[in-house]
């Protein structure tokens, strides 16, 4: 069973695209792909976000492959 006690705003968003707030401590929107997330953010009042893809938790990254 996974230990979900770590404090990380991405914890519930494995394999999702998310928009983090300016302090990067809160997810303000999420989607299955980048384009949908972009459209969601365009409709929000706050535009001060950074978009990030949350990789699967069970893999290490060696990303110059198609991850």
């Amino acid at each position, binding site marked *: 069973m*996974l*230990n*979900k*006690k*770590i404090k*990380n705003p*991405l*914890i519930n968003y*494995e394999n999702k695209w998310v*928009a983090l707030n300016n302090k*990067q401590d809160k997810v303000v929107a999420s989607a299955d*792909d*980048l*384009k949908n997330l*972009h459209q969601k*953010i365009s409709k929000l009042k706050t*535009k001060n*976000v*950074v*978009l*990030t*893809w*949350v*990789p699967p*938790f*069970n893999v*290490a*990254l*060696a*990303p*110059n*492959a*198609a*991850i």
Partner: protein
Amino acid sequence: MPQFEYSYLAQPYTNSSGKLIQEFRPFVPVILSKGKLATFPIHALVDSGADYCLFPAQAAEIIGINVKTGVKKSIYGIGNQEVISYTHKVKLHIVKYSFETFIDFSESQKIPLLGRDGFFNYFDRVNFNQNKKSILFKY
């Protein structure tokens, strides 16, 4: 010489003992633009092992690029997985620094990568500090 520094991004990761921990990785927010269209800031991985920059195809579509009109390229990575990409000239913005560069876009790529040719070559120095978990750029 202008410079800026970013802390690594903490991402959840299950280690070999099955424990969920935080893995700190050198992601930095960049904006891609073409003409008047621009993406929101997107976290991209600073990857000194990548020859070129590689982004998800949807990032190009957001700024009005028809991905498959670019120069087709085949990229091999870890495990000899082949990725088909299309190269386009875009403007890349990071903090107050911006430059026109070539980026490969692929439908099968999820993690945006900032590689040596197209990103590192626009800086005098890119210093990874693994202990401090930060990355310093000088240009």
